[in-house]
Each structure stands twice: as structure tokens, then as C-alpha cells.
């Protein structure tokens, strides 16, 4: 893995009262995740947007991918054999945008205009004109077939590089998940990695009370995939779980929806609610590097 050295420091204003120095590119997933959490909460509050809980759930996964787990940087985007990351749970857009902006793919200023008229960053993952975003998502179950296609094409053409598709657990209700799982296995796509943000909550309530996913790991195994189950907020463990496999790989990242902010954790409400000023203040007082 190759890291660009930190070559400068930028003063960045975060929230109302936090002046923080940040590197031009984070090499530590923990530092990146903390900075991204602040951005997520700030931008979601400013835009009066939803899905803050989903973003806080997945942000550690994305921070691992964009700091060390995947070979993708603002500088290598045009390389045909770089890694690909697709966020299929498009409602967690604020997490992806924050991580990409903090890693220098586009200006951090863009985050302030999240969901504004004619702004580049929409409420669900928007790719047009946004460097680093591979696919516009928002309707669940689209990212995996698309990523599968890229992985398949690379195999056909002998192009290296891996394809990471980050999904929600509720999203696995979609039939395309299992259609794709069969196709990937049949074609031996060991360059395809699914990471499931397994926070156990979907739109209305817990996944197991909605449509049982368990035994979840067994399902992927039965479809011919290698599986690894890790704490989805433990950056080192996640990073290790992304090591190469000889089959399509499913990493089940056990997470907590709303992670890092006690009143948002494990709550369906924060799938919808937008943080008010006092929520932002309270959230900022709790956030720390290792949750």
C-alpha cells in the first residue's frame, strides 16, 4: 500500500466552535473517521437532511477504504487498474462525500452546499461532476450488480484492481443481491468484495423483525463466497478483513447505527431526523477518535 506523505496543513473550520488542523490527506482511518463524523453531523444539520444514523454507521468502513484499504486516491482516479469503491446504500451519501472531500477528491467547501439548489452533492449519492463517486445510488440493490460488472469486465480484459461494494444489511432484502452473489461465484470473481454495514436496523425497525437475514453469514457461504465477520468500527480489524481472498469475499461489518453519538445510536428515529443545533453541540462534545 502506498501513502502520499502529508505535505501541508490546512486550517479548517468545523462546526461553530471547532478550529481543527487537518492534513491534506489522512493516512489514519481513525483520524479520518473522526473528521468525517463532524462533517456528517454538520452538513446533515445544515441541510436539514435525513440518514445521519446510516452515515455514522458506515463511515468507519469508508474511512478504512479511503485511507488504506483500497488503492484509490484523488491522484490515481484515471488509472484503469486502481480499485473501485461503490457505496450502494446511497442514503448514506453524507458519509461518502465527507470522506472524499477530506481525502482531497473535491473541495471540503462543497459539503456546505449539500442538498442546495444546483449544488453537486445530492441527498443520495450523486456521481455526475463529483470526483471519486463511481455510481449514483439511492435505489437499493443497484451497487452490487454494477460493481459485479466492473469486476467481470476486468477479469475479461485481464485488468488488475479490486471492486469494493458497500451495502446496507436491509438492502440484502433485494433480489439483485442474491442474483449477483450467484453470478460472482459462478465466474470466480475474486476481485469483488462486498462489505455489509450490518447495523441490524432498516427503514422501519430491526432487520430481524422485518425480514430475517440470519443466518446471514451462512447465506453468503452457501452462495460460494468467503466470509469474514468483524467489528465494523474497529479500523485495524476491518483493514485486515479486506486482505485478498481466493473467492468473492463478503465482509460482514458489525456496526451500530448512529455510532459515536449516544442519543443517535441504535435508533430508527435518526434514519429520518435531522440534528437540531443542540443535537449538533451535544454530538460534537461526545465524538472521539476511537469509539
Amino acid at each position: 500500500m502506498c501513502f502520499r506523505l502529508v505535505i501541508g496543513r490546512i486550517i479548517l473550520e468545523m462546526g461553530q466552535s471547532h478550529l481543527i488542523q487537518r492534513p491534506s490527506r489522512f493516512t489514519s482511518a481513525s483520524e479520518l473517521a473522526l473528521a468525517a463524523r463532524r462533517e456528517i453531523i454538520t452538513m446533515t444539520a445544515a441541510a436539514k437532511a435525513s440518514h445521519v444514523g446510516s452515515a455514522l454507521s458506515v463511515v468507519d468502513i469508508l474511512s478504512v477504504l479511503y485511507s488504506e484499504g483500497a488503492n484509490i486516491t484523488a491522484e490515481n482516479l484515471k488509472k484503469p487498474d486502481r480499485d473501485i469503491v461503490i457505496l450502494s446504500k446511497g442514503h448514506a451519501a453524507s458519509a461518502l462525500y465527507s470522506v472524499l472531500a477530506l481525502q482531497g477528491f473535491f473541495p471540503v467547501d462543497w459539503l456546505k452546499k449539500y442538498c442546495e439548489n444546483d449544488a453537486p452533492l445530492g441527498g443520495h449519492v450523486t456521481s455526475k461532476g463529483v470526483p471519486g463517486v463511481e455510481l449514483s445510488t439511492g435505489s437499493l440493490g443497484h451497487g452490487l450488480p454494477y460493481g459485479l460488472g466492473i469486476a467481470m469486465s476486468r477479469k475479461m480484459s485481464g485488468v488488475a484492481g479490486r471492486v469494493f461494494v458497500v451495502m446496507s444489511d436491509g438492502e440484502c432484502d433485494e433480489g439483485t443481491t442474491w442474483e449477483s452473489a450467484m453470478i460472482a461465484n459462478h465466474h470466480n470473481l475474486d476481485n469483488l468484495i462486498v462489505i455489509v454495514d450490518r447495523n441490524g436496523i432498516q427503514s422501519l425497525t430491526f432487520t430481524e423483525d422485518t425480514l430475517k437475514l440470519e443466518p446471514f453469514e451462512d447465506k453468503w457461504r452457501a452462495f460460494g463466497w468467503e466470509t469474514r465477520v468483524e467489528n465494523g468500527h474497529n479500523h485495524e480489524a476491518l483493514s485486515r478483513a479486506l486482505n485478498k481472498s481466493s473467492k468473492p469475499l463478503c465482509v460482514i461489518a458489525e456496526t451500530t447505527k448512529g455510532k459515536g453519538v449516544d442519543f443517535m445510536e441504535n435508533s430508527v428515529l435518526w434514519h429520518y431526523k435531522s440534528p437540531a443545533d443542540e443535537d449538533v453541540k451535544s454530538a460534537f462534545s461526545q465524538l472521539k477518535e476511537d469509539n
Partner: protein
Amino acid sequence: MRDVFVETLLEEAKKDENIILITGDLGFGVLDKFQKELPNQFINSGVNEQAMMGMAAGIASTGKRVFVYSIGNFPTLRCLEQIRNDICLMNNSVVVVSVGAGYAYGPQGYTHHALEDIAVMRALPNLEVVVPADPIETKLVTKFLAGTKSPSYLRLGKSNEQNFNQSEVVVSPGRFNELISGESGTILFVGSVGKIALNAAEELMNLGLSVAVASVPFLTSLDKEYLIPASLKGPIITIEEHSRRGGFGSAVLEFLNEENISASVGIVAAEQRELSQIGDQEFLRGQNSLQEKKVIEKFKALKEA
């Protein structure tokens, strides 16, 4: 049409290794030659249209030109959102190909009749809808589609369609293909219903009415230079083996409305009277108003109005 499509695509794919053909487990005996000669450019995805279409978009995103082959409504209605989001929105270079337009799979029943696809696909932005009239046009549009990158939908008949064109003509978006000229009005058609159009024109000629007949292979890029003079000349009758709701006739009416032209337009389309009725293509056309006599009735009524 089906065989001509596959033969033509094979020729083009031999010249361009970026052309990929994916099938949703259909095309028994039809795709064998392609698979045998270009195994690295062929994928049988299995019976999974939604994942297949998303996968096709992903493959196309890497710079390939992907043709996705299936029949009836399977590659259109079954995976509509994948076409909308992953192909149209992302501007990926995919051609959705459906064999069995209209009642081509007549005896197989309504599940296999493709009668709403034009309306649905035409509603999608950034998607060219292509409906060749005969094997000659099929060959030409296939070559055309192999050489471009636009997201497209290719609606094909099945087999044994006759040629209406006498020889290879020029096909391109924004251009109608006139088969016969006429002064009293115009019959426009899409797909393999050319025989109805030509027979109706012949009968009208016997009544002293000379009517032009043209095929419209590119349905989402209508021929302004042809259509505006045609609307001034006399009635326009459209014929399609498709529901009248939102189909080709609707496209012509929308075009004229956009041009602020008030014209006499008659739509001859499949009336879908009894969805469960079984029968061959010819029989079901007859049962659902796709007949010469309907074209003649409408033309005469509009001419006299």
C-alpha cells in the same frame, strides 16, 4: 430479424473486441455461433434480468459496448429501474435488445407479448428507441448501434419477416425511410407491420388516393423534415404492434404538438381487447385491430373530415 441481428453483431464484434453480448439465458440455437467464435465476448448471465442489466451497465462503464439480449418484456419491464438508473442516468454504453415484438410469441400467451415496451422505454431520458421494419433495416441499425456509444433499446421481431426495402438504404436517427411516395397523405409504421401499411396503401390507391408509406426505425428521433410536410399534405396514419397508450402514435402527436402543428392523425395500434386470448401473430393482430381495413377506415374518415 433475430438471426440477421446476431449475424451482423458477430461480424462487428469480430472487428471490435470491446463489443460484448450478454444473454439472459435465452437464444437457444440462435447465439451458438457467436458464443463459439467469440467466447471471450459472450456471457450467459442466467435467469436474472435485474442483476444482468446492472452488470451490463458496470461492464459498459469500463469502456465496452454491451448488447443485452433477451425476449419479450424480460430485458425491459423486468429490469426497468436498472435501465433508468444504471444505464440512462449514468450514460452507459448499453444496447438493450428484445426479440419478439408485439404478438410475435402469440401462442405463448400474454406474458410473452411485448405491447407496452415502446411506451415505457420511450419515456426514459437518454435512450434511443430503435425499431427496424425488416431484416435489411435490422442489419443496418445493428451496424449503426455497434458503432456508437448511446444507450439504446433495439426492438426486434422474431423470424421469417419479409423485406419491404428493396435494397440497403440509409438509416440514421432523425430520418424516416420512405418505401413509397404519395400525395394524399402518409402512413408511418414501426416494426414488422409494413405489410399492413403497404397493403392499405395499395387499396387506397385503387380508390384514387395516393398515400406515402414510410418506416420509422428511430422512434425517439423523428424526422422533422419529413413529418412537417407530411402533416400539411393530408392525414397521417401511424401503425404499431403495440398498445396505443404512449406508443409510436403518441410520439407523433407529441412531436406535432411541440411544433404547434394541428394535423389529422389516426393511430392504428393493438387494442388489447382480451389479454388472455391465445393465437398466432396473424390471428392476434386481426383480433386487436391491426388490419388493413382499420388503416383504410381511419384514413378515409380523416380525409373526409
